[in-house]
């Protein structure tokens, strides 16, 4: 046990050590790409209104023409102290963007992942259990179609049907204007805040706004899980221990759900975790379609405006999240399966 504990610790430390150069490469790429691309925030905003000399003067005053190496070292120093800077185009601390808009993305992502896991695992399990039946074919077809459909296309369809034609659901935003204004936000997660404050009218309003974007996003991701769960379940059901269970007279239902299902889920957990981490950096297309004020939408806006401070900060944060989650998943896998070592 001591030996196992020691090797696990060594694995974890090695894994963390490998994450550092990965992160450094990411930060350097972001820094360079934003500065190599043409334009700057001042030209983006005021080009075509002010004389070139005035634009040049403002750029020089803002320090955009400083040597790259100096800017790079300053950038690394700030990141090391978790100072992501202040956006150029709207003077917001980047941490505020991450907290406020990140909370919006987190809320959308969490609900979408629940839907994705429920539909993906549920349909995938049925498809794997009843292989080569109508249920299997239907499940696989659904998974392929839903995954192939662009999320913004599904979003538009949902808005058209449920918003415009049926008038059942709102088509944009996290909540209605009055609720957004009057809700006492403690966590910036509107669902949680409405529960904490006992504002059930706001809770209903927030749920109404969340249903469409979360369902659309969740179904698209669930399409991936359907195929993955099905394949893994079929493989697992071929295992010797499953045959042995059947030979012992264990019922098929118990064989599937008590023996095979849990083992089939191990690789799924990895994918779910990584998918969740990726979504936390912003489900851009979903957020754009539903006017969801998430971090992905803000990233697009700052990119459009060549706000490299904001873009750096957001991507750095996203990178940290993905690195953290992937390390966490690797640790969990290594903890479960002693064969997972360097």
């Amino acid at each position, binding site marked *: 046990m001591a030996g196992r504990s020691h090797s696990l610790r060594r694995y974890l430390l090695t894994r963390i050590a490998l994450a550092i150069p990965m992160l450094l490469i990411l930060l350097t790429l972001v820094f360079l790409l934003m500065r190599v691309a043409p334009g700057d925030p*001042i030209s983006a905003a005021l080009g*075509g209104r002010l004389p070139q000399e005035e634009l040049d003067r403002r*750029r020089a*005053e803002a320090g955009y023409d400083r040597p790259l190496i100096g800017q790079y070292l300053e950038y690394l120093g700030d990141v090391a102290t978790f100072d992501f800077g202040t956006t150029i185009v709207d*003077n917001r601390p980047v941490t*505020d963007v991450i907290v406020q808009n990140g909370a919006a993305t987190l809320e959308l992502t969490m609900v979408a992942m629940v839907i994705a896991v429920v539909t993906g695992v549920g349909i995938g399990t049925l498809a794997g259990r009843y292989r080569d039946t109508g249920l299997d074919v239907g499940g696989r077809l659904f998974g392929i179609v839903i995954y192939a459909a662009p999320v913004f296309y599904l979003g538009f369809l949902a808005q058209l049907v449920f918003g415009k034609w049926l*008038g059942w659901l709102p088509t944009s935003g996290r909540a209605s204007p009055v609720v957004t204004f009057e809700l006492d936000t403690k966590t910036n997660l509107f669902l949680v805040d409405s529960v904490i404050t006992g504002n059930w009218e706001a809770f209903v309003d927030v749920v109404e706004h969340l249903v469409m974007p979360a369902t659309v996003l969740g179904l698209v991701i669930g399409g991936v899980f359907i195929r993955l769960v099905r394949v893994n379940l079929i493989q697992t059901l071929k295992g010797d221990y499953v045959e042995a269970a059947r030979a012992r007279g264990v019922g098929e239902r118990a064989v599937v759900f008590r023996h095979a299902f849990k083992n089939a889920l191990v690789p799924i957990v990895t994918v779910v975790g990584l998918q969740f981490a990726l979504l936390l950096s912003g489900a851009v297309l979903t957020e754009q*379609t539903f006017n969801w004020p998430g971090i992905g939408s803000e990233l697009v806006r700052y990119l459009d405006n060549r706000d490299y401070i904001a873009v750096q900060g957001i991507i750095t944060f996203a990178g940290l999240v993905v690195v953290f989650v992937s390390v966490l998943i690797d640790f969990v896998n290594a903890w479960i399966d002693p064969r997972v070592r360097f």
Partner: protein
Amino acid sequence: MEGVWRGGAVKRKGRVAAAFAVMALVLAACSSDEPGDTDGTDTGTAEPADVTIIHGTTDSIVSLDPAGQYDFGSNQISQQVYSTLLEVPAGGSLPEPALAESCETEDSTVYTCTLQDGLTFSDGSPLTSEDVAFSFQRNIEIDDPQGACSLLASLAACGKWKDSAIETPDDTTVVFNLQAPNAVWPSVLTTSAAFIVPSEVYPADALQPDDQVVGSGRYTLAEYRPGEQVVLEANPSFYGDAPLNTRVFVQYFKQSSALKLALEQGEVDIGWRTFTPTDVSSLEGAEGLSVVEGPGGEIRYFAFNLNLEPGDEPAVRQAAAMLIDRQAIADNVYEGTVDPLYSMLPAGFAGHTEAFAERYGEGPDPDGAAQVLDDASVQTPVELELWWTPTHYGDASADEYAEIKRQLEEGGLFSVTLESTEWDQYTEDAFTDGYPAYQLGWFPDYVDGDNYIASFYSSASFLNIHYENQEVDDLIAVEQGSTDDAEREGSFQRIQEITAEEAPIIPIWQGTQLAIVRDGVTGVEDTLDPTYIFRYWLISKSE
């Protein structure tokens, strides 16, 4: 000029809209207040009507500090929470007293403004001449990269404040000592660069945080959620008439399609800025919605670089001016949402003439164009590289320039190569002799012809197209220094005549303002004018 109402049928839809209706009815039933005084008299004591307006827009905010803004989204909110010494009333074009009861000058160089008595900011602190001087000084000294301090160049250059620029002999007197005669200074005093802020609250050397705005406007800022929402509430200490509503929600949308859906669903009352032509076509005649139009000062044009071929040849520029069919562009590309423009000074501005129509006619004249080129011994087809930018001026730019290419090539007089690049690269190349001819647009900073004429045709123009005409420069100096309206209009007219003849810039269209409004909302048509100020205080709603 007032807006034109184009109505549609009445129908309520959407659970959110129904919720607002119930809420408004409950509030109305509980309220014992009388409606506010809205007969236009300056009582300063009337209560605002208990109405909530929701405005949806695709604009965004850069900064709510006057020293840090030079964009539509920021200006729109700032117009509601701040005040200026002078302001242009709805439908008007000339500055009128606001915080100042008068601003006088004898030589267009020294302006003496007298503040009204008893002015206060929304936090209750008195507004005095010291605050006025402070506001201008900090704007110039902060010299924010995204600010509009350049509009105050007559007072002092950005970053180079001079203490002699403003004198404040007493609490209600402000004396502006300009560096040179400038007859349009009163118009500058209506712009975002001239908003007055409290000297006790705002820092002198940094921008005020956006959620801590204090002004003396008709509204206070109750809430600011960046990228999502602004909430404005009527300012009880405002010096003038109370707004026709109590509260305004401004909801921000990333895409016009989302705003369009929100309108159709009743989630917002008004959609203003910015819809595509297809959005507007789709919304025209929609149940429960109406399209309200008003004049706008937005223009589109393309400019020749006079140092590069073929724009260095006047006959080429004149021929191009003769071949452009502006009505076709307005109808086919913009579905009638813009108007043909025959001068770089748009219709609705004092001094406007249809200079290009008078010189070249309204429609395309291929025979005239061929004759001009032949007279100048220009070989045809003329090779022209024409640049445009895909997203900055809207998605219709591609269609617009495809149509311009078609028009120029019809008859075989031009062979046009269209080139495009995104805005960031575009602004680097266009103004540094990179493009022989290129697309541009313009919104006015203030409602005066000078903001168009001087900006485009002075030899120091930001366009850098190397257009120089001494008579034009002299006329610009005259209109900038004169307070005689007839003299200024005469200067504008002569400048338009000269520049139509020389055609360094070809005007294409002038935008109308469009707002999509839910039935029951009133007052929008009163605020759509060339100032581009959307005056929430004129808007009300009946249930």
